[in-house]
């Protein structure tokens, strides 16, 4: 049973204050939607929990089952049950997807997984996610389309079976069919011992995977939280109401969500 407690979290990136006092508690069996306009700290929050070295915690605490997460290395966090499907998964040329996945699975086992069992699990997941049959032999994310990268993140989540799964804009770059496949895989992972944090801009994502809790992050703080009704509020009203709370809305110009699989590379140029 993994309980994640975040208290008064302040985070800087390259000297810039991004998170300014976030409080959050995630319990098993909960699915938390993290919403908010681009550039307001959603990815920063998830990356900090996972331990990305770029993000510096300047104040506050993160605890996993009472243990200080900030003192743990990234791989220890992973082995403790955390998982982050990244908004921009890295490409690792020269390393085949299967070598990587086997190493990752073995990292959390006492005895290495047998080749037979590994192939069976991998093939099962590839079929279920309707991915390229040749995936195992391709270099990790290298030359993958945006949608393929996202599905590869879900594939890893399925194989690694984390206690707390954080999915950062897992729906961007997916067409409607792919989104349905991914949502189904996420729903299948839901169970009473596991929790999730989902970042997305889109109502359709949260219709497919219904959150138990919703938080809206603006300018590094949670400005609103509640149940799934907040998703509808944002879908109809956008974020303009935030200004009435006297909070400045940050707009990140560079990063726009990309919807269609075939324009998945557009964001890079």
């Amino acid at each position, binding site marked *: 049973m993994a309980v994640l407690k975040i208290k008064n979290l302040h985070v800087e990136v390259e000297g810039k204050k991004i998170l300014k006092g976030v409080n959050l508690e995630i319990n098993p069996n909960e699915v938390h939607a993290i919403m908010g306009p681009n550039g307001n700290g959603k990815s920063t929050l998830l990356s900090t929990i996972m331990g990305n070295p770029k993000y510096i915690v300047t104040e506050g605490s993160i605890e996993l089952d009472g243990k200080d997460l900030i003192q743990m290395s990234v791989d220890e966090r992973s082995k403790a049950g955390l998982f982050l499907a990244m908004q921009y*998964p890295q490409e690792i040329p020269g390393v085949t997807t299967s070598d990587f996945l086997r190493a990752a699975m073995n*990292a959390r086992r006492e005895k290495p997984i047998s080749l037979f069992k590994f192939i069976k699990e991998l093939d099962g997941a590839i079929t279920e996610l309707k991915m390229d049959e040749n995936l195992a032999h391709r270099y990790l994310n290298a030359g993958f389309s945006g949608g393929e990268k996202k599905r590869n993140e879900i594939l890893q989540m399925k194989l690694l079976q984390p206690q707390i799964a954080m999915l950062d804009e897992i729906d961007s770059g997916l067409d409607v069919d792919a989104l349905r496949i991914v949502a189904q895989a996420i729903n299948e992972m839901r169970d009473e011992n596991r929790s999730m944090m989902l970042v997305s801009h889109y109502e359709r994502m949260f219709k497919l995977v219904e959150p138990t809790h919703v938080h809206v992050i603006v300018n590094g703080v949670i400005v609103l939280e509640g149940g799934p009704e907040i998703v509808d509020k944002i879908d109809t009203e956008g974020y303009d109401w935030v200004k009435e709370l006297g909070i400045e809305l940050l707009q990140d110009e560079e990063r726009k969500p990309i919807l269609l699989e075939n324009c998945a590379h557009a964001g890079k140029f």
Partner: protein
Amino acid sequence: MDGAINNVIVIDNEISIIETDNKIKIVNNNIIVSQPTSLKVVYKSIPDCKNLVFTVVSDLDLYEFYEFEGDSNIENEYQIEPQANVNRYVENRTSEKFALNIEETVNVKDALIRSAYLDLGATNCENKISYNLLTPGGEAHVHLGVLSSNSKKKYDIALNHLNHHTYGNMDNYGIVKNAGSLIINGIGKIAKGCSKSNTHQINKIIVFDKKCQAQANPYLLVDEYDVNASHGASVGKIDDQQLFYLQSRGLTSQQAMSLVTIGYFMPVINYIKNEKIKEDVGELLNEKVVG
């Protein structure tokens, strides 16, 4: 070709044929390949004025291994004749810190050559490798993977486009550790009148510690307008976001570094058709790069 090795030559002061299918001929220092086959050449010591000329008239899988037993100079010439399709894998396996001076001239007519060089050897070296694309249709792909660990290595690799409609591509990758030094100069030259030619190069070096020295210099010398040329060069640390990605899946930082660096060299394996050599190289990479 199925990857079997049909001819083996050892250069140990003299040229000895260990195995042959009679599809190659040796006349003085000239090795002539006239029918499709495969050939492995092992260099142990090179006598003065005994440099080799390879004349390749037919398809060839060529493997060359440096297992030198002292300081050595090589000045080899490769004549790749029209229509030949050559797949070449060169590996420096020399395990002691000898000095190597290697000069290679590869003359490519209307033929295709794909060459990979893997240098994990302990030697210091100064290598000059030139691919001369002599006639239209000439095509050369070069892939270098070099580790300089506590040694000094310098590679000049040139693609010289000497006719129109020629194609050259090189990917040069280096890793420097244990206070080693490495210079890679990638040279793409397109002479006047050699229109519709393509020359591309990437030079990339990863540096492990502060005591290392590294330079990756791309040179594009283009004397013709109607061409397609590109280059890129970088020297840097291993990418911390790549490491973060791998570690977030449970790999320790040591494991993550090893995977990324092996991955750096792994593409040379695609140039090897012989399964046994492929396997050996995979193991060697694990041992040398990780260990």
